[in-house]
């Protein structure tokens, strides 16, 4: 099981997200279907899917930074979410992939799926600013 450098943030805990697995070194985040993530009846709200993608992206980038021995902070610049399939009333998973980690910015792709990882319900594409912590 992945050791995350931090507990999941309050927003993730409020939606019952948890680290359930690991994929290529990145934490897989699971989110159960509850009323709190529901949009139109019996479907996930797009915002909740986006939230799962965001948490997976943040977890992946923290993992990648830690692997480099960096304690830099991150700041999100933007995000594009493609909604590909309706999210059904069941468990949803997401994992982030840091496609590029530079000194000043990072590109992250996050994928959310339900039964089959090859059939994503949504993809998120994020840019983060990397902010190195100043020496004390």
């Amino acid at each position, binding site marked *: 099981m992945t050791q995350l450098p931090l507990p999941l943030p309050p*927003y993730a805990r409020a939606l019952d997200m948890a680290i359930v697995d690991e994929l290529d070194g990145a934490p897989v985040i699971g989110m159960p279907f509850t009323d709190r993530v529901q949009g139109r009846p019996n479907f996930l709200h797009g*915002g909740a899917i986006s939230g799962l993608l965001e948490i997976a992206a943040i977890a992946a980038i923290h993992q990648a930074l830690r692997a480099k021995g960096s304690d830099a902070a991150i700041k999100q610049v933007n995000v594009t979410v493609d909604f590909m399939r309706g999210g059904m009333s069941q468990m949803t998973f997401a994992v982030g992939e840091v496609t590029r980690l530079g000194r000043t910015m990072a590109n992250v792709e996050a994928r959310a799926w339900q039964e089959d990882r090859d059939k994503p319900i949504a993809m998120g594409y994020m840019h983060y600013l990397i902010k190195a912590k100043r020496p004390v």
Partner: protein
Amino acid sequence: MAFGKPDLGSIMPKGAAFDPALVNKIMGKFGHSGFLDMEYVGHGDDWVELSVDWREDLVADPETGILASAVIISLIDNATSMSIWTKLGEFRPQVTMDLRIDYLRPSPSGERVYGRGICYHLTNSIGFVRGFAHNGNPDEPLAHASGTFIRIGDRV
């Protein structure tokens, strides 16, 4: 709590103009929008503004108290979606195809965030939207958004 099942097709009387304030009273109190406690702020011919108050359990970074990015996405998703129905004058089933958000600055800890959705073009199948988020002064936006919705099924 049992899952709320708002059926917008039955809420809006046939032939009645789409009323975002009324719809948010129902849509904003169920499911994810209810969790965020989304409130109706105002609307025009082609726009709808909603808001969400800052809350500790919506924070993504406990050190700074900055709201999760997805709170803004949910807000913009709902506001832009409703802006289409408002411009159209009636409810029709649709889903979000994509949404992009640029964060000009973080939403400060403790501050209510407002999201305005604007429908700038409609075709038979696609609603083109843009939007922005702010903390009370629309001239000082914290995020800009653009996206598309696709119509599903038949007109109600």
